[in-house]
C-alpha cells in the first residue's frame, strides 16, 4: 500500500499536514505524539514584524466548527528563524511548510527571502487570504490581479516550491487560482477560513471582539471540496486540499476531488491526536475502497 505523495518534488510519507495556525511551530504537539509521522506541517502564519494579533475573545464556537480572529499573532520572521526553527529541528526531522503573510508585496518578499535560506523549509505557503487583518491579507486574495502580483513577487526571490493559499470568500475561485498559476505558482492551497460571525445573546453583541472572524471546521467541508474540484479541473498544478477534514474518509474524498495532499486545521484543536489517528486509519479505509496507491485517486472524480 502506498501512502506517499509528491508536492513539486517534496516527497511526503503521507498526505497528512496539520494546517497553519492550528499547530503552532510544532512544539505543543510533540507532547502528544511523535510528529515525525506526519507528511509535514505548516507552521503558524508568520509576518515580517512580530504581531500581537486581535483583542480577545478571539474564538467563538459554531455547529461543527469555530470562528477564530487570532489576527496572525506571531513572533515575526526573524524570531521564527532564530528560535522556532532551531527548536523544531530537535524533534522534527522532515521539511516543514513555511506559512507566510504580509501587508505589502515587500513584506511577502522579505519573508520569502528569509525562509528561502532555511534548509528546514521544504515548501513555502503564501497566505493571501487571512480574513482577520483589516489591510493586506484579505485584499490580496480577493482579486486575480493582486493574487498574481504576490505570486510573481515571491517566485522571483525563492527557488523553493511556492503554494498560494487562497481565500474562499470570493465569487470566482477558479479565476484567482488560474491567475496564480499563470504568475508562476507551483501549487495552490485551498481553502482558508470563511468569513463568519456569532452573537452572544446574553451580551447582545458579537462573541468575537473583532466582530467577525474566520470560520472553519467540519461544517465547511463541502465548500472546500467543491473549490478543490473546480480548481483542479482548471489548473495543472498540484493542490493542497484543506477545510473541514476530520477523518480518513474525508482525506480520500478530498484527494478524489483533486488534492495531492491535505491539511487539517480546526480538528487539531478539538482532538490533538486527529492527524495521528487519520494516518493510522488511512490504510484500512484505502483497503475498504479498493485503493492500493493514493496517487491513483488524485482527481479521479473528474473522470466521470
Amino acid at each position, binding site marked *: 500500500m502506498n501512502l506517499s505523495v509528491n508536492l513539486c518534488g517534496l516527497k511526503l510519507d503521507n498526505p497528512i499536514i496539520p494546517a497553519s*495556525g*492550528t*499547530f*503552532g511551530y510544532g*512544539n*505543543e*504537539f510533540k*507532547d*502528544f505524539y511523535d510528529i515525525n509521522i506526519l507528511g509535514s506541517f505548516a507552521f*503558524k502564519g508568520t509576518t515580517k514584524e512580530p504581531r*500581537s*494579533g486581535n483583542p*480577545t*475573545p*478571539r*474564538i*467563538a*464556537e*459554531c*455547529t*461543527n*466548527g*469555530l470562528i*477564530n480572529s*487570532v489576527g496572525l*499573532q506571531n513572533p515575526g520572521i526573524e524570531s521564527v528563524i532564530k528560535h522556532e526553527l532551531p527548536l523544531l529541528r530537535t524533534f522534527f526531522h522532515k521539511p516543514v511548510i513555511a506559512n507566510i503573510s504580509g501587508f505589502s508585496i515587500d513584506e511577502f518578499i522579505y519573508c520569502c527571502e528569509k525562509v528561502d535560506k532555511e534548509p528546514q523549509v521544504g515548501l513555502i505557503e503564501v497566505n493571501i487570504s487571512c480574513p482577520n487583518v483589516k489591510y493586506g491579507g484579505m485584499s490580496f486574495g480577493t482579486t486575480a490581479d493582486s493574487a498574481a502580483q504576490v505570486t510573481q513577487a515571491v517566485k522571483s526571490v525563492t527557488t523553493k516550491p511556492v503554494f498560494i493559499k487562497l481565500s474562499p470568500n470570493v465569487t470566482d475561485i477558479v479565476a484567482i487560482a488560474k491567475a496564480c498559476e499563470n504568475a508562476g505558482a507551483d501549487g495552490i492551497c485551498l481553502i482558508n477560513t470563511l468569513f463568519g460571525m456569532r452573537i452572544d445573546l446574553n451580551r447582545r453583541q458579537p*462573541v468575537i471582539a473583532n466582530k467577525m472572524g474566520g470560520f472553519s*471546521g467540519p461544517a465547511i467541508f463541502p465548500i472546500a471540496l467543491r473549490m478543490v474540484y473546480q480548481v483542479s479541473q482548471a489548473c495543472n498544478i498540484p493542490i493542497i486540499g484543506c477545510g473541514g477534514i476530520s477523518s480518513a474518509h474525508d482525506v480520500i474524498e478530498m484527494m478524489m476531488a483533486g488534492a495531492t495532499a491535505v491539511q487539517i486545521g*480546526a480538528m*487539531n*484543536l*478539538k*482532538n*490533538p*491526536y486527529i492527524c495521528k489517528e487519520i494516518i493510522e486509519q488511512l490504510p484500512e479505509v484505502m483497503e475498504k475502497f479498493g485503493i492500493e496507491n493514493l496517487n491513483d485517486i488524485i482527481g479521479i472524480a473528474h473522470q466521470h
Partner: protein
Amino acid sequence: MFKKGLYTIVSNQPLTKTIYKMVLQGDTCYITAPGQFVEIEIPNKFLRRPISVCDYDKDSITLIYKVIGEGTSFMSTLLPNNTLDLLTGLGNGFNTDIPQKQPLLIGGGVGIPPLFSLAKQLTINKIQPTIIMGFNYADEIFYRKEFESLGCNVLISTLDGSVGTKGYVTDVIQNNQLTYDYFYACGPLPMLKVLCHTLPTEGQLSLEERMGCGFGACMGCSIETKSGMKRVCKEGPVFLKSDLKL
C-alpha cells in the same frame, strides 16, 4: 506533558442551585500543580470546555462547575459510570514555591474551586492560608467546610451581607484588617482588576479566556502582559500580578 483520556464519573451532584461537583476517575499523572485545568469534550459541541481542577489525587479528579450554557448543562445530566473525554495537565498552575508566611487565597464564585488544591498544597508546605470567598447570595455558598477542614481560616462576603461581610472580597480584607504577605486569586475579571490595583503585595491571579485548543497551539487565548503576549492556556492561566496589565 498532556494526557487525553476517558475518565469515568464517580459522582456528580449539585452543591447549590447552579453549581455542581463532579468526581472523575482516571490517570492524573500529568496534573502537576494546583490551578491547572482540564478541557472536556462535550458531545455535539465543537470546542472542549475548560474547567479548573478543584482537587486531585493519584487516580481521581474533582471539578466544580457552574451551569452556564449547553456544555455545562449537559455535564450536569451525567450519571456515575458515564465517561468524559478529558485533556488533563493543562496550564501552568499556581506556584507555591514562593517565600511567604501568610498568603491570602481570594476566590469569587466558580473562581473558588482551584484554590482548594492550592490551599491543600500550601498546608502541606506548612503554610496556613486565609481563604476569602465572595458570593452574591447565601444560597450560593459552597465548599466552606471543605476549606475549614484543611485548618484554614475562611472569611466570606455576600452582596447582601446575609452571610459574612456585606459587599465584596475587598471589603472582607479591609474590614478584617488582615495581614498577609502574598495573595492568590481567581474569579470574575472585575474582582481580579480591583485586587491588582488595591492589594500592596505581589500575588498570582488565574484568568479566563475563550479557548480554541487549551494547550497552546492556536493563539486563541493570548493576552498582552508586561512581558509580551502570553497564552492563558499555556503560560497561564496563572499570572503574576506584576506581569499583568489589567
